[in-house]
């Protein structure tokens, strides 16, 4: 198996899908001549030309809508947001056009489009460049949302997302682009949407999470092990479709769980999972489900405050101990 960075795994996935299907094109700011602000599309311009790797003006609303229109007539656009922070300008076209088009047209126009880019915080980018935006997309039926945490998942899921016939918000992370991992060879490798992945087995407590927090969860689980606690780390991978069975399976096993998410708690993904679990596994719960999330503040710039604001291993341990009544 090849070892790739998350960045290169995405690049490979995009490359294979561009090669496989002429109707796929990648559009966004700096994706072509500049190889992508984070170099995810490196080399693809030379390979596929400027009709399939398209640099745009800074017009998020415009090019997101352009992508949706192109998808109405059968193209499969991959629209890159330099980061999802900037997608607030385009969200009307995602929620009101892409997500509702198939329904309000009575099934005539499906929208096979991928909106992708880094989501959440990197390092000291402060309030306007650090928001985790999953909730804004996952809330709305008509959208699918995926958040790969590893290179293999990044490649397998980007391919699945591009082949999917519905709008997919594909949320990456700047902090993950350099993460290395093994990635299966061959362009038939796919990670289907809607399949969670148990990143670590455990029987005492479930740490359910998604995206870059998977790595924080694994660090916490390693520490817990030293204390004799076996934590199971469930990586949702897809937020919609949601692998409810995998979540319940873990709860049935551990009877205790926390949800770890990068973003804010209020009506976040964690709130949804917690509600769902207690609705569907109430009698299996030996303790309340605790959420670990970003401090309920805009992301501060100062290094020390940013550290405090982000959810970290310490908070995860505290939460796990709480639900373990230790």
């Amino acid at each position, binding site marked *: 198996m090849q070892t790739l960075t998350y960045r290169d795994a995405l690049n490979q996935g995009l490359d294979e899908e561009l090669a496989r299907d002429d109707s796929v094109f990648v559009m966004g700011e700096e994706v072509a001549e500049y190889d992508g602000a984070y170099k995810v599309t490196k080399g693809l311009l030379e390979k596929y030309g400027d009709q399939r790797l398209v640099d745009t003006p800074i017009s998020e609303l415009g090019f997101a809508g352009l992508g949706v229109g192109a998808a109405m007539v059968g193209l499969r656009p991959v629209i890159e947001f330099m980061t999802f922070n900037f997608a607030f300008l385009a969200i009307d076209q995602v929620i009101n056009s892409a997500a509702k088009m198939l329904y*309000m047209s009575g099934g005539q126009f499906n929208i096979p489009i991928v909106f992708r880019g880094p989501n959440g915080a990197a390092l000291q980018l402060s309030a306007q460049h650090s928001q985790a935006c999953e909730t804004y997309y996952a809330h709305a039926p008509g959208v699918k949302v995926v958040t790969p945490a590893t290179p293999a998942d990044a490649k397998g899921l980007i391919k699945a997302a591009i082949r999917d016939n519905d709008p997919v918000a594909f949320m990456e992370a700047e902090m993950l682009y350099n993460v290395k991992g093994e990635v299966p060879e061959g362009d038939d490798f796919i990670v289907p949407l809607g399949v969670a992945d148990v990143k670590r087995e455990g029987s005492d407590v479930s740490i359910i999470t998604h995206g870059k927090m998977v790595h924080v969860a694994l660090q916490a689980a390693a520490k817990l092990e030293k204390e004799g606690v076996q934590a199971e780390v469930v990586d949702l991978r897809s937020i919609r479709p949601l692998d409810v069975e995998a979540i319940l399976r873990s709860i049935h096993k551990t009877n205790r769980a926390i949800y770890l998410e990068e973003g804010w708690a209020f009506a976040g993904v964690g709130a949804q999972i917690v509600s769902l679990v207690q609705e569907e596994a109430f009698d299996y719960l030996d303790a309340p489900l605790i959420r670990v999330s970003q401090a309920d503040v805009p992301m501060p710039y100062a290094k020390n405050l940013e550290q405090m604001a982000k959810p970290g291993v310490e908070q995860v341990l505290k939460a796990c101990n709480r639900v373990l009544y230790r």
Partner: protein
Amino acid sequence: MAETKSRTRSDTSAKPGTEDLFGFDREELLDLLRDMLLYRRFEEKAEEAYAIGKIGGFCHLHIGQEGVAAGCIKPLRGDDYVMSAYREHTQAIAKGVDPNAVMAELYGRVTGASRGNGGSMHIFGAEERFMGGHGIVGAQIPLATGIGWAIKYRGEDSVSMAFMGDAAVNQGAFHESKNMAAVWDLPVIYVVENNHYGMGTAFGRVSDVELRERARGYGMPVTSVNGQDVLATYRHFEQVVQEVRDGSGPQFVEVNTYRFKGHSMSDPVSGTYRSKEEVEGAMEKGDPIEILTVRMMDAGLLTDGELKEMDAEARRISEEAAEFAENSPFPGPEELYENVYAEINEHGRLFLDGRGEG
């Protein structure tokens, strides 16, 4: 025209250029007249149906603007695309969507153009390449630009026509779209139906300059035409469409017209924002159907009887559409969860309302 009535040269002398038939032959003229009569009667029927509660929600009539629908859309080919906002019933019909399907959509029946899921603001016709029917002012502009992108991407020679109202030019989407279309030379025709009001707001209150000036600054051709003169509009668009098809890149056309009805059903025809006199004057002098009728009669190409016959036919079709709609079933309950997603993934749960998998 409240009622079709015969005309003599005398009482039309006021009307400018009544002689000018732009070289259309009689059959072509009759077709355009027939089309506009249908649009008018069809929407009058919808208005009736709305009044008795057969149609719900927002319903925006195009009455008075039929010249735009016929004059802009009829010059198009079947493989050209048309996209519009929410005042689109007649544009859908002009592009070939079955009046029965349009009326059934207004009635919210499963035989509707959008299976009853969309309603008045969301008429779609994939086969006819009528691309909706969009309710967010300005949102259709990037969408139609994307269709233009796809046409160019595939090297096809069809065009994408985007209708919008005068008020929509104040949306950033208008600006962003025109810039991209210009940079990438997309085959898009941006058509502003300038009926001079956005709801209750006169254009002059939300723009310091004439509408067509607002389209400058992108390097694309900007033209204007009188939409109440369907023949002038048709000829103008014949040329614009050909130019765009031949690779001129995007063009912008202002079509001047007037809304004879209120903004939507709840909005009075006149009152707070425009005077009774203004509206009556516009209806008297600027009815696209009357203008064409008079010209044809003056030219001896249309008799009173023929007009009455055509009008009766238009009423009959509208009547039938209403009956068709009335007799059509509502969508079945199973449709509630259909068409949310085109692809129900093999794994995972897509619907999370706790009502079960729909």
